[in-house]
């Protein structure tokens, strides 16, 4: 089964992450494939917030994905994961 990506999901995610980076004083350019956690631009504080934000905003249970942040390591990765058929809210 394939899923057509909803562009608004990606742009909302980009806005959300850019805002968090600005709050941390990081206004360097950010492309959709830049690594967020591996690079250190987002940290442990951001990780909890990001997962909870996705859970509440999209009604998805991400508790298992919290064990593996490398799957949320870029805007593209997050947008893809949020829109996986298995991740859609019931």
């Amino acid at each position: 089964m394939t899923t057509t990506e909803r562009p608004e999901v990606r742009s909302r995610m980009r806005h959300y992450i850019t805002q968090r980076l600005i709050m941390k004083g990081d206004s360097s350019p950010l492309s959709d494939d830049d690594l967020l956690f591996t690079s250190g631009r987002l940290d442990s504080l951001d990780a909890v917030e990001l997962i909870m934000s996705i859970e509440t905003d999209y009604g998805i249970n991400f508790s298992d994905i919290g064990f593996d942040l490398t799957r949320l390591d870029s805007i593209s990765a997050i947008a893809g994961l949020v829109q996986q058929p298995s991740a859609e809210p019931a």
Partner: protein
Amino acid sequence: MTAHNLALHFEEVVAVSPDAIALICEGESFTFSELNGSANRLARWLISQGVDKGAVVCLELPKMAEAYALAVACIKIGAPYAFLDPAAPAERARLMLERCRPALVVSVREGFGPRALIGDDAARAALQDAVSRLDDANLPQTALITGVDPAYVMFTSGSTGEPKGVVIPHQGVLHLIAWAKQDLGIGPGDRLTNVNPIYFDNSVFDIYAGLLNGAAIVALDALKGRPPAELVSEITKHQCTFFFAVPTLFMFLDSMHLLGPNWLPSVSRFMFGGEGFPLARLRRFYDAFAGKAKLINCYGPTETSCICSGFEIVESTFDTTDGLAPLGKLNPNFSYRILDEDMKPVPAGTAGELWLGGPGVALGYINNPQETARRFRQDPLIDGYRSILYRSGDLVEAEAGTGVLRFRGRADNQVKLRGYRVELEEIDHALVACKGVTRALAVVLHDAGGASRLLAAYAGAKLAEDELRQHCAAHLPAYMVPSRFIWLEDIPVNANGKADRRSVASLLGQAVARAS
């Protein structure tokens, strides 16, 4: 060791092992003798700047070698020091400085109060030059400092809307050091990480349990926009044997596949505290290091000299439906009572509020008699002489027979966010100070995995979320800035007419889900 204050205890360690490494910071190593000499010179410099026994010195510094040496210098004079976050919003820094009424602020930035600036290389070099001409011998007046004299001030969130400074006596830290030696086996040959921020309570353990037991401390920054793999590599490069941090950091390293004996082979003991560690996540940590390193859960409000109980994680720890690791048994020299709202002991096996006593308990809050009187009270079961207990606000239950304490929630609106203690009322106050906001209430939502998210509801004029976020960021540290701000027609109240945080949390949970 028989020293009656921290400074003499440190000097005894220096005499035993002058050439052992005491501190590794900014790529440089300092022996005990070098750190002691530097602290003695800085103590004489502080005296020349008007600092005397009992005066407060604020150290608004990042992890630089001078920060550690100045802390030791202060304890040698008997001048309590307060580490302040050099990145804190200016308004919050001013509130803390006003409470301290410092004789001197040593800082990397301009601001309130009489200050010595060491913000750039030239200023640092000038201080080093001035100090280098001073005598590096121990100070004779150090012997006059008693165990009940204040050693340091540690700021924590306050429910009245401003942070409060906890004053800890020398004897409180001496007991912490003894516990670290006896129960955790810390001694010469050990290397402790100091990943915890120095203006955060957990760093008291790193610095004193390390240095005063003859171990080295390695200053490291966890949150500086660096790849997490770098932090792990540094811990291994410096052969650290003891790693203490908040559960959030360990869970993060686990999520990045960096928490395992192949990444951290030198660490033989991991300790975590400051917030609960969800057992599901702890299980992964425990399994990863099974037989290779000990895991210790510790507990202690700032008012109990950093830590008042510890619990080693073992296989049977997971045979519980609690969801969180136990707090453990209280360390020697702490006494406790579990009381109900009427300050009467609760029946065995039921939860009540934990009140803590003994020499490890704080002297009170600096220049804040109202808050001190509210939290430090005469033991209700003792009549006729002074016996002070600190009211922790933590609801606990004591396990019959073992005395192991289990956490059962809070009696007030204090929450733990990434290990930081946050009074939600402090956020409410900051929001109401924003023009147009008439009432505000901060709440925390929890997910099934134990993670938490800070949100805020407000009433009054409808404002842009970015505006509210910027306002909060100007008044509160980053971890206290809510991630979402939701406008409500009015803030719901309970039967007593008080703002109802529980129903607001429920409303906000629905609101953010609907907004997507």
